[in-house]
């Protein structure tokens, strides 16, 4: 690494390219500084405690170092990084919690009661209750909802993340919103 090159001036995409080429840990430290706080706070949304969120963040960055070459630049790095984080968290939650699955199955039978939930209805929900709903709902539905409404990804970006068609993205979102509403009403 030449001392004249300022690492912090690199765009995320250039930084990733350089890390893949050189495997330099100094460069990876810069990427860590840029994304670790966001990743940690996202992990807190999936973990039961701070310690668990710290472990998740640690494991995500270790896996990221090994998998960074799979970023092909088809989307912004931040989009890819958020999806990487959520996928890791979803796998973690699914691996560790059979109880959640039981609850979801119970709720799925009531899904048909709520029909045609749009974004307006979703934005009317109370944050505290929504937090509880998201801890019960299927983590895959939680992931798409957070990507759309928390990270404000467009439908097009969601298409790249999930590698599915526009109508499939819209359908998944619609179903996730309906599930949220069904559980919300039960709480």
């Amino acid at each position: 690494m030449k001392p004249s090159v300022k690492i912090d001036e690199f765009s995320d995409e250039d930084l990733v390219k350089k890390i893949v080429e050189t495997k330099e840990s100094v460069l990876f430290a810069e990427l860590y500084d840029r994304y670790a706080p966001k990743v940690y706070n996202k992990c807190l949304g999936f973990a039961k405690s701070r310690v668990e969120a710290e472990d998740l963040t640690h494991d995500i960055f270790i896996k990221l170092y090994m998998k960074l070459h799979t970023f092909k630049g088809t989307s912004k790095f931040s989009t890819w990084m958020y999806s990487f984080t959520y996928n890791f968290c979803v796998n973690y939650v699914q691996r560790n919690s059979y109880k959640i699955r039981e609850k979801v199955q119970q709720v799925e039978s009531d899904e048909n009661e709520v029909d045609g939930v749009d974004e307006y209805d979703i934005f009317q929900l109370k944050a505290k209750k929504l937090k509880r709903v998201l801890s019960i709902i299927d983590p895959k539905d939680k992931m798409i909802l957070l990507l759309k409404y928390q990270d404000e990804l467009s439908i097009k970006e969601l298409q790249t993340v999930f590698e599915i068609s526009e109508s499939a993205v819209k359908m998944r979102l619609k179903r996730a919103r309906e599930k949220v509403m069904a559980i919300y009403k039960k709480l």
Partner: protein
Amino acid sequence: MSNPFKEILHQEKLPTMLKEKVMNDISFIKLAIDVADLFVVKYPETVESLLKTNKKKL
């Protein structure tokens, strides 16, 4: 219109110790990759090039 999804986003400070832990593990992985590369790729290549003889036409 307020977005409840933004409200539930955690805003906690990341523990500084975590960076040290991550970077130590990354350095160890890098070392392991480099050592493996040395013995599996570079060392055999060197030996091969040492043993290779250029046959000159007489």
